[in-house]
């Protein structure tokens, strides 16, 4: 206990010293202030853009300059949102999130495993290269009808769609990272007689942590694309369903509300991966 206290004291002393150093240099203080100010400026501008956009939208709709039947309007979106939340918004949200997460996890895990297999065997990698290139270029949404016939119209079809869209990109991105690992580092491990599994776990995988996280970030977005296009085609629930339904019955309020909710979902998912990345890298 006493030691801990002492440590704290030492630390706080160090802090004071650092602060003192900051006090000494006026230029440094100026510089830090400038950076802070700039960040604040950017943030305020960003918020203002959103607020002004919404305000203009609302004003134009109220004064009848634009037809709110076609464009909807912020106050009506808010009202629809409140209605939905007291109704079954949560159910739709849950469906879309579950589908996206399952598709995302499957795509990531399968993609990484396949990429490792291709890294391991240059023969399999060379053989599969043209197939991967074609599959990557193919718009996966075109497979929609085939998927529905094969796995049935429902949640499985949507998950398969998310998987189809994210899998190939994952394989290609991860494989590219694995292949481009510093050859010298691999040779260094070989000088200690490392086997291929050790090279993979001790050199190649840790060297590609940031590649992996970049892939995850791309993937969560792609899975969402897959899920929404899947829901457009088959579903009886989910945000994609709300959008299609709203469009069909010409309820633009519902469409706009759903799109905004979707944007929030996408942002939250992306942000969670970013937070996860920070935690993992800090632990390293």
């Amino acid at each position: 206990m006493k030691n801990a206290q002492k440590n704290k004291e030492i630390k706080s002393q160090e802090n004071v010293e650092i602060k003192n150093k900051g006090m000494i240099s006026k230029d440094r203080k100026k510089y830090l202030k400038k950076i802070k100010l700039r960040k604040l400026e950017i943030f305020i501008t960003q918020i203002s853009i959103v607020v002004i956009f919404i305000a203009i939208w609302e004003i134009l709709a109220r004064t009848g300059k634009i037809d709110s039947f076609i464009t909807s309007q912020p106050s009506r979106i808010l009202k629809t949102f409140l209605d939905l939340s007291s109704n079954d918004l949560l159910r739709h949200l849950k469906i879309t999130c579950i589908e996206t997460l399952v598709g995302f996890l499957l795509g990531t895990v399968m993609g990484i495993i396949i990429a490792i297999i291709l890294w391991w065997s240059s023969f399999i990698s060379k053989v599969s290269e043209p197939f991967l290139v074609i599959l990557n270029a193919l718009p996966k949404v075109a497979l929609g009808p085939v998927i529905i016939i094969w796995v049935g119209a429902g949640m499985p079809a949507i998950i398969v769609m998310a998987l189809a869209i994210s899998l190939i990109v994952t394989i290609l991105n991860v494989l590219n990272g694995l292949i481009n690992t510093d050859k010298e580092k691999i040779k260094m491990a070989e000088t200690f007689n490392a086997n291929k599994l050790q090279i993979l776990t001790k050199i190649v995988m840790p060297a590609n942590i940031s590649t992996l996280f970049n892939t995850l970030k791309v993937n969560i977005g792609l899975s969402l694309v897959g899920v929404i296009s899947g829901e457009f085609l088959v579903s009886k629930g989910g945000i994609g369903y709300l959008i299609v339904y709203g469009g069909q019955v010409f309820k633009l309020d519902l469409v706009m509300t759903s799109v905004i909710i979707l944007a929030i979902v996408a942002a939250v998912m992306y942000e969670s991966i970013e937070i996860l990345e920070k935690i993992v890298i800090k632990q390293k």
Partner: protein
Amino acid sequence: MTEEKKSILKANNIYKTYQAENGEIEALKNVNFEIKQGEFVSIIGPSGCGKSTLLSIVAGLEEKNDGEIYIDGKIGYMLQKDNLLEWRTIYKNVLLGLEIQNALTEENKEYVIKLLKKYGLYEFKNKYPTQLSGGMRQRVALIRTLAIRPTILLLDEAFSALDYQTRLMVTDDIYKILKNEKITVLMVTHDISEAISMSDKVIVLSKRPATVKKIYDVNFEIESRTPLNCRESPKFSKYFNLMWKELEQYEKCTEK
């Protein structure tokens, strides 16, 4: 007279040919040499003559086409770049070799700690490689290799990635550590002066296909010899000119 020292490494009639789509390249042809315990031996030769290939073959990283390598003991290998893993602390980096060889015993860990303490790196053991200078990083790489207790150390242009000033200091530093730990060394370098300043023997290879042209015994008769005080010796320039001329001949041949 000292007793006859035992031979640690012997290379007999080594041949190596590379196959490529547009033909084959004869890299090594009938290479022979021997290294005795405690010796510091350098290999120099015209650029691209296959020096590093020879080292890789000695280490067993590359196949040879013919010939035999005898090694008495364990090999340590140090590359041009330090190749420290930036996601591991210095301590974890130094343990990498032991980890790969499944030899992370308490005894070996203690040995590593001892080495870190002895060579002034202990206080940095929880730092990351990016926080260290080039010279210190090279020293960490050396300790990573020494951790597996090699009897012979192979140095592959181990200092050429450093700037000149650092390089002189690092060679001096590492030379002292190696002598201290009584390690036998085989070093490949393109730098004649580096070879002379550190070695007891310098093997000169010809241009491709490389074969051993000459083996020089280097003896400065300085009591506590270091690479830096060797450079100041009058004998240094004598050796330098000798080897320089030898190598120049081959370069001329290539130009024709």
